[in-house]
């Protein structure tokens, strides 16, 4: 039946919703295979030490134990971009929680008991506590062997230091602009590393079949990345590796790249290939596996009296912890996006990924953009204060638009979103003009803050996606892609795109919800807010391919040229005589003439996409085109603070984002609300606390708090639609972006409430209280 209503812009119910709310979805964590063995890890109790001895004798002797392994057993170094990390620590441990030994046993309980029987002798080494400390020439070298590490060309490690990567941006002449400036402001900002706290802890089940095929079921955003990295680092032909990725219980970047898979494989291989399940406990998921990077940053802005920003000098020091993982690329992305969505003609920036003795860092929703945004938005508030300008107007004056150039001198094209409209709408949603600071009573203040943000996917220049489409007897479709469901609702979005293209109901489109790398087509990674865009383009291309094939088959029985045919609403018909046509059921598996003759055969549509016009960036100047499509948006928040004790409530959070086109309003809103909620947690509490030896004190959820039901403010989500011409039905990415501006907006509001510019995170009641007390003595005000 033809569907008159468009599938685009409709809140089609998400396909995985009913199973998820009933608790029926099977995540990788739920899988138990026959004959499966269980692994358990002994992790480091110290942050930096030479391993003097490991005694595994008693553990190995325990009944039910198949093997006990240490770093010596696995002489490999694995890394996403920079091969710096042994699967189990070799010679040294570099962070609290690093895996030191692994046990494989018949059951989980035996494995855990055996781990208790392993004893490790450590000679502790001096610890590196922060990126700035790591840059001091007297700091201990965390990776003295860095010169020997294999890395991709885009990553620029500096052997002999603790710098694993440096991105340099040199645009215009910042020095001259600073000399000519009417005003300059400078701020230093910082926050500690944290964790994603995804619902499903990371898990991988690896087996090596008798024919040598390596099969790994894993909770991953990046099945093809796992395959490629394992092939490269462990010397397995890529075709001998099969990765199976089902629905993931929350990714947030923490399951992109490579996680437990290499160690699970090595353990399976070491016990004869039986399936071995390596699953993180919650505590291991927080500290042993990577989390969010910390940051220390310094921003200087030069401006004219009217608020026009003329130059920026920026330094970002990303705390990558003991290993580089994704942090090197996070630093790179933060470098080429360093100014935030503002038109600044002269920019000098150095964005570094720096080793410390903290748990190591990987991608985290926003991918460096939260960090840069916080630094820039706080600096803009410093500038607004200095110039006595309204923070909204200061931002509006400097907003980036089509025709302006990014820090990497990439000129934004006609597809650029309308950020000023987003900013005005976000400000209106929190009633900015009604007063940005209101004294409710003697000790209660309501204050507001705004921020602008941008984010493009931080991806390789050749980032790809692909799709196949096949048909069932009822002419419904099976769509196979390499995209992973991580909670974002991608399969529903892809089904809507396919249905729209064919003029059918979304329910007629079945998106296969498991990625198996030997039968699903290649897809870079489900990350970077690019999956609806890229896998969407691939699906549309596959539909177009299938439609062409349908027309070819139908042309004969309909006795007309292919180009006269149209496929829509479940039929193929003559465009100008729609009554003459065939139902797709009679074509998609081959057409059968009344006498029994058949033509065609099952139709399989193939579609692919690869990013357009991207380049690397120059190692000395950062100039190039690294960003495919920039999603722009603005956020506004309102908080209420009791200045006597710093207790606060977040009252309203508004986000206005130019997404090109909204494909599914409810799913889009869900993504943005989730991102804003995560941003509240990121700003106010989700940070590791370290002791004096850099051991994590709050590695458990009773101590590491996330925002719970009952604490949420009113969320206001507003979309602006400036078409992204190359996006599927004009859409651009929106998955991460809602978090990016939250720390800046919240810090702005809190600063306004207590009368002091807050420069670090997390913003706790204690921090607010102590700053408010300082302020009451100094009588400053924050505009």
């Amino acid at each position, binding site marked *: 039946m033809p569907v008159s209503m468009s599938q685009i812009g409709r809140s089609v119910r998400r396909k995985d919703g009913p199973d998820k709310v009933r608790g029926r979805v099977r995540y990788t964590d739920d899988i138990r295979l026959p004959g499966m063995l269980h692994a358990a890890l002994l992790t480091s109790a110290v942050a930096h030490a030479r391993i003097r001895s490991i005694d595994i004798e008693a553990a190995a002797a325990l009944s039910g134990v198949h093997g006990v392994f240490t770093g010596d057993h696995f002489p490999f170094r694995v890394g996403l971009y920079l091969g710096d990390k042994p699967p189990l620590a070799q010679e040294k441990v570099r962070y609290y929680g690093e895996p030191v030994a692994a046990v494989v046993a018949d059951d*989980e*309980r*035996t494995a*855990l*008991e055996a781990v*208790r029987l392993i004893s490790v002798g450590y000679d502790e080494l001096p610890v590196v506590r922060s990126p700035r400390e790591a840059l001091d020439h007297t700091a201990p070298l965390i990776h003295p062997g860095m010169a020997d590490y294999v890395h991709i060309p885009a990553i620029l490690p500096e052997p002999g230091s603790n710098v694993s990567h440096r991105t340099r941006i040199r645009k215009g002449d910042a020095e001259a602009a600073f000399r000519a400036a009417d005003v300059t402001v400078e701020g230093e900002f910082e926050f500690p590393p944290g964790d994603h706290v995804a619902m499903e802890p990371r898990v991988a089940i690896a087996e090596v079949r008798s024919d040598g095929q390596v099969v790994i079921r894993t909770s991953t955003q990046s099945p093809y990345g796992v395959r490629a990295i394992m092939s490269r680092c462990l010397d397995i032909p890529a075709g001998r590796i099969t990765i199976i990725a089902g629905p993931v219980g929350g990714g947030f970047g923490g399951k992109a790249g490579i996680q437990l898979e290499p160690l699970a494989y090595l353990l399976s291989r070491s016990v004869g290939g039986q399936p071995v399940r390596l699953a993180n406990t919650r*505590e291991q998921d927080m500290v042993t596996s990577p989390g969010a990077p910390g940051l220390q940053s310094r921003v200087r802005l030069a401006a004219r009296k009217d608020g026009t920003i003329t130059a920026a000098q920026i330094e970002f020091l990303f705390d990558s912890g003991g290993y580089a993982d994704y942090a090197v690329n996070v630093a790179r992305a933060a470098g080429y996006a360093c100014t935030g969505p503002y038109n600044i003609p002269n920019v000098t920036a150095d964005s570094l990924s720096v080793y410390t003795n903290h748990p190591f860092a990987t991608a985290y929703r926003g991918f460096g953009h939260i960090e840069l945004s916080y630094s820039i938005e706080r600096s803009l508030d410093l500038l607004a204060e200095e110039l006595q300008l309204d923070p909204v107007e200061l931002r509006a004056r400097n907003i980036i638009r089509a025709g302006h150039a990014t820090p990497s001198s990439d000129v934004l094209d006609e597809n650029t979103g309308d950020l000023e409209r987003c900013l005005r709408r976000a400000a209106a949603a929190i009633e900015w003009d009604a007063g940005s600071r209101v004294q409710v009573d003697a000790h209660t203040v309501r204050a507001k803050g705004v921020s602008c943000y941008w984010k493009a996917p931080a991806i390789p220049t050749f980032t790809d996606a692909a799709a196949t489409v096949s048909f069932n007897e009822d002419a419904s479709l099976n769509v196979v892609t390499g995209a992973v469901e991580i909670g974002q609702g991608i399969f529903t979005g892809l089904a809507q795109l396919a249905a729209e293209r064919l003029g059918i109901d979304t329910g007629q489109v079945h998106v296969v919800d498991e990625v198996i790398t030997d039968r699903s087509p290649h897809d870079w990674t489900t990350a970077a807010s690019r999956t609806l865009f890229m896998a969407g383009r691939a699906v549309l291309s596959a539909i177009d391919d299938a439609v062409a094939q349908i027309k070819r088959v139908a042309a004969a029985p309909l006795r007309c040229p292919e180009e006269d045919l149209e496929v829509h609403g479940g039929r193929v018909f003559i465009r100008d005589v729609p009554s003459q046509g065939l139902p797709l059921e009679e074509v998609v598996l081959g057409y059968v003439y009344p006498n029994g003759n058949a033509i065609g055969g099952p139709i399989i549509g193939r579609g692919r996409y690869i990013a357009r016009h991207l380049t690397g960036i120059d190692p000395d100047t950062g100039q190039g085109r690294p960003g495919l499509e920039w999603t722009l948006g603005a956020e506004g928040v309102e908080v209420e603070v009791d200045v*006597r*004790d710093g*207790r606060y409530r977040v009252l309203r959070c508004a986000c206005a984002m130019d997404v090109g086109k909204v494909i599914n309003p409810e799913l889009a809103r869900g993504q943005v609300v989730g991102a804003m909620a995560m941003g509240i947690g990121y700003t*106010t*509490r989700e940070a590791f*606390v370290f002791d004096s030896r850099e051991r994590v*004190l*709050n590695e*458990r959820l*009773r*101590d590491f*708090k*996330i*925002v*719970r039901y*009952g*604490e949420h403010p009113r969320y206001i989500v507003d979309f602006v639609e400036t078409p992204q011409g190359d996006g599927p039905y004009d859409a651009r990415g929106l998955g991460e972006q809602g978090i990016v501006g939250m720390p800046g907006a919240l810090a702005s509001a809190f600063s306004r409430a207590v009368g002091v510019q807050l420069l670090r995170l997390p913003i*706790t*009641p*204690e921090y607010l*209280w*102590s700053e408010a007390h300082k302020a009451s003595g100094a009588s400053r005000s924050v505009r």
Partner: protein
Amino acid sequence: MIAYDVVYVRADSVDEAVTAWQQAHADGLKPAYLSGGTELLTAARENRNRPDVLVDLKRIGALRSVTESEGTLRVGACVTLTEVVEDGRFGLLSRAAGGIADRSVRNSITIGGNVCGMLPYREALLPFLVADGSATVAGPDGTRSETLEQLFSKRLLLKPGELLVSLSVPSALLRAACWYRRRERDARVDYPLLTLCALAAPGGRRMAVSGAFAYPLRDRPAEAALNGNGSPGERAAAFVAGLPNAIRSDMRAGAGYRRALLLRAVEDAIIELEAGS
């Protein structure tokens, strides 16, 4: 997962529980009384505090009720915090119990577990401290009842093998004007930076504090300041200055912030109790 074997003993009476504990102890094993189990289970998961024998008290009827007779309210040790909250006869206790953890966890935590368990704050005891409460304990030497003033110092002074049977307060104080406040680092479901229970008894105002310390504290000499002259702020300062114990500082908050919360709470309590009297 709890990766070791335990012997589980379900006791039907206090005597049976005490005997089971003694037997295990005599066998060279490490016994523990099990009530709500929330702490024992989470600690066991992390391989901390591994008892060999768990003696479950939850099925002992005598420990499972709240009764009032002869001018005394008795709360059995295995009454859950949710049940205490809903019982409502001791309003201050309902409020203090209701501030601990979250609802689903309070369905398991018992008052005895909160008072005798591994976690330091023991907030459910605060109302009993300000209301001159007593505790009944049972052990190898039989059953005894003593005032908390005698039996409590940072923790219940139980002898090996003793278990808490009940906590009690004089009925006369159940309706006395009271005041309660709890403050956390940020999220409400968290350990307290401050919990304060105050009671306006006929003899004067009393206050017991936890969170600011890693244990409940009622300091009678310091309470003199609460009932003296001066503004509420001055009396609060004198009270806090009179507390002999150092204020806690940990990863959740520094001592300075805890002290500020405490000072404000004491002052607010004085003001509001006076306004109500």
